[in-house]
């Protein structure tokens, strides 16, 4: 459809250029022509690097596609069935990586929904230095995964890391293998991810909190609601639209986790912390078995869409139920 948009542009330009050299700006075809010209640069990028790849990815997944070989024979659904019946050499590693991804997601998402909310509530209100605090908690997010991972790899180093040193001072075990053994590796990956991205969600929550009308709190107080009741009946419903956004964004970010495990644990111990993206990138871009990697990424995407739909429906329904109850 956007193909029509892009290809129609030059055609329209030619026709009107010939027939009507000076159309009025308000004329419909003139405006359409202008619109396509405005859209053209972006639509070229969008078509080549978003639309075509979506279709191309599916096509690749139906072929025994190896980047390094001259022929890429069509194999139908073999890449998919191989992952399900175990006949593909990637079946085991793939499902392990899916499991790792969803374990990481289940551990991280709830923390990234609740902790930033607590931080936002703490900062919601006028006090001196508020913007400074807000900036400080947001700062790690602007650093990017490479810096954050390298930094925490140092701090969590089992032998010379700060974390074990201070744990020792507090009388706790001071030789915890934070990055090289389970369950510590997962704890580290989850903690670092929360530390890194907490500020992003907190800032969104904070903005949403400030959109809630103070009158609602006033009315609740007049009705004799205590702090907890005010939170439950005013704050949470006010946050609900944003909650869908935050949940969705956080979920997508967590299932796409890659850099932390690539840099901090190298997927280890063994391949325990190898996430799906890690496995897909390794299969497709290091070993060049792109057919198998594309099939993996299709399955991965489908699973993600499914989870997102479930969450969306759940949050939506609860919202509807709430409104109904109040009326």
């Amino acid at each position, binding site marked *: *459809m956007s193909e029509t948009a892009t290809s129609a542009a030059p055609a329209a330009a030619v026709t009107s250029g010939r027939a009507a050299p000076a159309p009025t*700006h308000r004329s*419909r075809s003139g405006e*359409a022509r*202008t619109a*396509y010209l*405005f*859209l053209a*640069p*972006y*639509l070229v990028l*969008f078509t080549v*690097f978003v639309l075509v*790849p*979506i279709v191309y*990815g599916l096509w*690749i997944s139906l072929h025994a596609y190896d*980047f390094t070989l001259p022929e890429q024979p069509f194999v139908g659904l073999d890449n998919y069935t191989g992952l399900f019946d175990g006949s593909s050499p990637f079946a085991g590693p793939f499902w392990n990586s899916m499991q790792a991804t969803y374990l990481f997601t289940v551990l991280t998402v709830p923390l990234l929904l609740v902790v930033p909310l607590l*931080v936002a509530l703490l900062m*919601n209100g*006028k006090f001196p230095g508020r913007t400074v605090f807000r*900036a400080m*908690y*947001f*700062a*790690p997010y602007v*650093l*990017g*995964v*490479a*810096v954050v991972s*390298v*930094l925490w*790899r*140092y701090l969590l180093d089992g*032998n*010379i890391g700060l974390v074990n040193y201070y744990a020792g001072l507090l009388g706790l075990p001071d030789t915890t293998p934070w990055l090289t053994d389970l369950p510590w590796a997962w704890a580290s990956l989850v903690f670092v991810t929360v530390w890194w991205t907490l500020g992003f969600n907190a*800032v*969104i929550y904070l*903005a*949403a909190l400030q*959109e809630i*009308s*103070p009158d609602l*709190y*006033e009315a609740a107080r007049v009705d004799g609601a205590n702090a907890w009741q*005010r939170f439950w009946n005013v704050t949470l419903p006010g946050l609900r639209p*944003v909650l*869908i*956004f935050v949940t969705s964004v956080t979920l*997508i970010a967590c299932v*796409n986790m*890659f850099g932390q495990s690539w*840099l901090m644990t190298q997927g280890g111990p063994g391949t325990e912390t190898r996430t799906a*993206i890690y496995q*897909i*990138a390794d299969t*497709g871009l290091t070993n060049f078995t792109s057919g198998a990697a594309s099939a993996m*990424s299709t399955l991965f*995407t489908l699973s993600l869409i499914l989870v997102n739909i479930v969450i969306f429906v759940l949050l939506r329904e609860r919202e509807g139920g709430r409104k109904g109850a109040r009326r």
Partner: protein
Amino acid sequence: MSTATSAAPAGAGRERPGRRPAGTDTTASGRRRGKGSPVPRILAYVALVLLTLLFVSPLLYMLVTSFKTTADAGSATPQWIPDSPTLAAYREILGNPATPVLRWFLNSLLAAALQSLLIVATAALAAYALARLEFPGKKLVTLLILATLFVPPVTLLIPNYLIVGQLGWLDSLAAIVVPGAAGAFGVFFLRQFFVSLPPELEEAASLDGANRFQVFWKVILPLSRPALATLAMLSFLTNWNDFLWPVFTLFSPENQTLSAGLSTLQNANAVRYDLLMAGAMIASVPVLVLFIASQRYVVEGVSRAGVKG
């Protein structure tokens, strides 16, 4: 997901970033505090200070370690003030031809600046058409662009790698500038902003005989400076920090970006934390400075995209 597309009310972005809606001062906790005991307030401050420590001390330790000798950086007893501060780590990574950090820095800078420019230019044009012009297929184009906001990046990873390979762009600047500019966020972000601008201004200009492009260039763009700056900044940060894509599309040491280069540095020097922290500092300082200078825009941009979008 539909909240993201439909909830943006007209007028959302009308005010300049940094504006405060009337009544912000009297938020719930602001009032609650007025009559309560000071204890919760003190507890809140204690919590804020502890959190601050948790956020600032790792970054501070990164800074401190980058000025340590190799031995001190690898010592089991942390030194917050180095015994013998030195620039040796910086000198070593900047001077090592296997890890040309200065070159990586320039690559990162160039890639992030070019992509940011490309995004702002193409997204502004497209967003204007979607916000203000009428044309057949408008709804479909809008929907398609917005729908891809929710396509997980991994869907594009393998095919885009092959497309970039077929274009002959692997291991080049084009690979890390162009494909990433096709994302839908910029168009979506600016469309919301343009929709909120009062149409009267454009009508006045076009009555004066300005064509659509002149209206866009002379009326819309100047009015949109804060939104354009926010988008440029967010795009710059995203590209500067991107990791997965450059790690796989850039091979030569001299073509790396800083964030991808850090993994080279890590693999080449597994336990040289003085070098790693110096490299991490070089990758951090520009974005931290950019962030501190434009903190308001970045944070506003993020919260506007989340709350109003």
